[in-house]
């Protein structure tokens, strides 16, 4: 029998909430903020019906704390926010990375900085999503470009978070968050939904942060007799804080190495017309949709343009981008900020070709014709 296909016309924000529930999310804590609030609205409506819990906390710091608390209790949990709230979540986000508590954070970007333009789009959190919390830490950031992809990437966010015990940010922007598109909401195959690895050994032998080959320690479910300690202090394999710098180095080393080791599982990107592209466009989210249009017109005029779009923004799929840029003379980086992604692109390409930014940082999206114009200028 064919699986029932369920198509619906919904907003990106609603798709995010429905994707989360489809992935098994059963706890949401949040604080209202435009342009993300519809995620909370949908969660508050849908979670009770599937035995989940929705709570509106007193601020974003508390929301992030409650999400980690629920996750440490063994329940898949998420929060959603926008720029100012994302800033407030950073300390606890670092804690989640340190104690390896799976959790998902949707950040629907507005124009910034500060309170910025709450109802207008931006892509100003590209760097904050990677480096927002203090200290070296692992984090995964996904950047969908459509409502359908918000749904599927939110599911992927939960799967990666559970599989690797790492916080995952879904970076959306106001345009996609509020965009209405028809989406295939067919529930994912249950076998594709990943649950974290639970400790099953004898509690006497349990090491909460054991350094194993796959770098992902099994988690103890409170109540199952393991009586583990969880701390944001640098801890060794036992989970207790250590002042031994050698042990600290091994523990943090494993933490940082975890994503590199699982890179193949994490990376996801789209490369269009890159093989012969002399002008490569690298961008994410809604800006990538403008780029796709631009490439069509450019190709029609015989300009060899291509697009590289990291769906997994962090860790950045650098080898894939280098390959996509194999024939590139110029890389154009359109982004709704004053220039962030371009730094990563320049790091990866290491001076092998020219880079040009196309930037808008005051609440407007980038149009196909702007990208086209930039491409025509460098090829003329």
């Amino acid at each position, binding site marked *: 029998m064919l699986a029932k296909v369920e198509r619906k016309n919904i907003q990106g924000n609603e798709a995010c909430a429905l994707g989360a529930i489809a992935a098994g999310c*059963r*706890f949401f*804590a949040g604080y209202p903020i435009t342009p993300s609030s519809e995620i909370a609205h949908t969660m508050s*409506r849908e979670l*009770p*019906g599937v035995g989940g*819990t929705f*709570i509106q*906390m*007193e*601020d974003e*710091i*508390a*929301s*992030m*704390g*409650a*999400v*980690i*608390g*629920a*996750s*440490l*209790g*063994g*329940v898949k*949990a998420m929060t959603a926010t926008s720029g100012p709230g994302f800033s407030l979540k950073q*300390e*606890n986000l670092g*804690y989640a990375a340190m104690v390896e508590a799976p959790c998902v954070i949707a950040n629907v970007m507005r124009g910034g900085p500060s309170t910025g333009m709450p109802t207008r789009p931006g892509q100003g959190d590209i760097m904050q999503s990677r480096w927002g919390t203090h200290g070296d830490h692992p984090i995964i950031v996904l950047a969908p470009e459509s409502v359908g992809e918000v749904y599927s990437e939110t599911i992927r966010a939960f799967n990666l978070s559970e599989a690797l015990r790492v916080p995952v940010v879904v970076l959306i922007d106001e345009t996609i968050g509020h965009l209405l598109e028809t989406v295939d909401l067919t529930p994912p195959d249950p076998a594709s939904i990943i649950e974290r690895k639970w400790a099953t050994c004898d509690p006497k032998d349990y090491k909460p942060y054991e350094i194993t080959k796959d770098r992902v320690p099994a988690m*103890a479910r*409170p*109540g*199952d*007799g*393991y*009586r*583990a*300690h*969880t*701390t*944001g*202090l640098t801890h060794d394999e036992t989970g*207790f*804080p250590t002042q031994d710098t050698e042990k600290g180095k091994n523990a943090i080393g494993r933490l940082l190495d975890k994503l590199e080791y699982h890179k193949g599982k994490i990376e996801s990107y789209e490369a269009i017309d890159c093989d012969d592209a002399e002008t490569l466009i690298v961008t994410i989210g809604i800006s990538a949709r403008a780029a796709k249009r631009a490439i069509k017109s450019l190709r029609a005029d015989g300009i060899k343009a291509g697009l590289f779009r990291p769906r997994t923004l962090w860790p950045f799929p650098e080898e894939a981008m280098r390959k996509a840029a194999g024939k590139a003379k110029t890389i154009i980086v359109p982004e709704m900020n004053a220039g962030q992604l371009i730094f990563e692109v320049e790091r990866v390409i290491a001076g092998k070709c020219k880079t040009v930014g196309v930037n808008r940082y005051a609440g407007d999206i980038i149009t196909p014709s702007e990208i086209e114009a930039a491409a025509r200028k460098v090829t003329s």
Partner: protein
Amino acid sequence: MNMEPHISAEEFDIRQFMRLDLFPHFLCPGCGHGMALRALMWALWEQNISMDKLAVVCGIGCSGRLGAYIDSNTFHTTHGRPLAYATGLALARPDLHVVVITGDGDCLAIGGNHLIHACRRNVNMTCLMLNNEVYGMTGGQVSPTTSPTRYTTTTPYGNAEPVFDACKLAEAAGAGFVGREVTMQVPTLKDLIKQAFDYDGFSFVEIISDCTEIFGRKNQLGESAEMIMSQKASTRPDSYGTRVDEPFRPNSLPTGVLVKTDRLEYRAHQQSLNPKGQK
């Protein structure tokens, strides 16, 4: 009348509940937090609460470090936020017995917002706030509960800020159970904690503790024993009634159960709401 069977202090051996391999512990000699820990463990033992089903959620501070010594599910979270973490944990896992350990700085300064909303919200958990009038861990800075007559490392000329009354704050924010006790009276403190455990909802207990090594030394409050004895002079047990008069000093701190009201616990309340009602 309390009809619970009496269990003698001699029978209670705290060591069976401790992670002894972490000893010696880090507390300074005479620190009041150790007595608070003893009262907590004693209450858990008398209530027969399984260490497997217990979750201890701590903030950051000397108070917050206590959790690591308890052989249970222990969470050392971020400064000021243990109530937020505990709220998520308690809602996700109502089968766990959730206890929060926090300090006066952790709970009233950086975490003050979470305290008032935890009181208002009434999620089932017990919050123990260890009040030693100072930021012990970071070297003795002024806290929201430092008396105006004391000196700290950030108020070298005296303290211009008035003291926060945590219990009044908790009451005003709607907490259904509020109590206060001193570490001088560990058995009484233990009994108070047991009553807090019995309350179905959010219970708040302020424990008057002492930072002997930093605060005591700086203010020349004497040795640990003298500091503890001075607790007696500044408190007024509820058994002495509510009239502020002899033999206790006026304006001294009332102790015991200060508030106990019937309120529907948060989760129970949520589940009673009609999902077919307005959406």
